[in-house]
């Protein structure tokens, strides 16, 4: 799949599988899973430095920012104000202008607060950040976010960490028809077939974390996800056959014995 690169705001992404760095056993496992997944984009959270135990290992000792595109996120933010502060701090850390904007609306579902997300996105776009917003699978919200300058949108497939897979493929399709920017499915996928399905729908990339980190064998699942994305993308490019209710024989009728 040469020349099938994903480009967002002028940045070329080699992989259509984007991965998170949370919930792993340790940094070594995080590193290994990321390597095996074949990704070049890893999302990280922004958190207070541990003042008491300064010698604690740093994630960036394992994930080389020269090798991977670091995508800071505003996970854990419940207000536009907190998300803006967090995103601005991430940008000031000096590695990237990219941010995965999340403003969470509810602790039980972790669904996005779309209204607050739009409010925060407006501010951050004006500040010059490349804002990739986590959003409900809502075509109207997606359009509003693109209208104010988001170069891609990240609709959820299902609640974060739920592993339920693509719950509403029709909305994703409508989003893809509504906005002409890359669509990155963010959150809710459970296994490689979910990822393949998202790619077959025509989504541009998938971001996941728990589906790999929470698997019995995270390293093996990282590899499965790599092939899920590749297979799904190839199938989308190849163009699947239409669905039909009845059979169509694939062997010729002529030359059958007894005819």
């Amino acid at each position, binding site marked *: 799949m040469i020349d099938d690169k994903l480009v967002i705001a002028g940045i070329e992404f080699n992989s259509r599988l984007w*991965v*998170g*760095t*949370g*919930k*792993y056993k340790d*940094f070594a496992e*995080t590193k290994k899973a990321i390597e095996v997944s074949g990704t070049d984009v890893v*999302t*990280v*959270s*922004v*958190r*207070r*430095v*541990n*003042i*008491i*135990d*300064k010698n*604690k290992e*740093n*994630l*960036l000792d394992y994930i080389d920012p020269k090798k991977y595109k*670091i995508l*800071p*996120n505003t*996970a*854990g*933010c*419940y207000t536009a104000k*907190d998300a803006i*502060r*967090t995103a*601005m*701090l*991430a940008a*000031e*850390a*000096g*590695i990237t202008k990219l941010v995965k904007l*999340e403003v*969470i609306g509810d*602790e039980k579902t*972790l669904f996005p607060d779309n209204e607050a997300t739009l409010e925060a996105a407006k501010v951050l776009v004006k500040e010059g950040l490349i804002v990739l917003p*986590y959003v409900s699978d809502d075509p109207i919200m997606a359009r509003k976010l693109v209208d104010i300058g988001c170069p891609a949108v990240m609709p959820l497939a299902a609640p*974060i*960490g739920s592993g339920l897979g693509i719950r509403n493929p029709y909305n994703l399709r409508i989003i893809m028809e509504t906005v002409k920017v890359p669509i990155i499915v*963010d*959150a809710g996928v459970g296994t490689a077939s979910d990822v393949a399905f998202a790619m077959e729908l025509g989504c541009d990339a998938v*971001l*996941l*974390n*728990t589906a790999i*980190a929470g698997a019995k064998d995270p390293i093996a699942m990282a590899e499965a996800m790599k092939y899920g994305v590749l297979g799904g993308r190839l199938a989308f490019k190849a163009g699947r056959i239409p669905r039909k209710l009845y059979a169509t024989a694939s062997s010729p009728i002529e030359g059958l014995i007894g005819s």
Partner: protein
Amino acid sequence: MNITLNGEKREVPDSLTVIGLLLHLNIQHQRVAVELNESIVKKDSYASTAIKDGDALEVVSFMGGGSDCGFRIAECGIKHAAV
């Protein structure tokens, strides 16, 4: 003087700048971002920004995380690193 650092009261030497504080705490300043009383301190201002008694600072860095970790920032911090 007394400051609030990452949400906790802390006594530090008088007349410190931001860079002075980071050195005092032995924090690698290349990989962090600093907020002083809710305003971001640019890296090139670390040496010229003085910290006063009663100031509130946030020093953050990148940690593991995917989508939401389930902790609010106020209760996250150190706890998150162990997740």
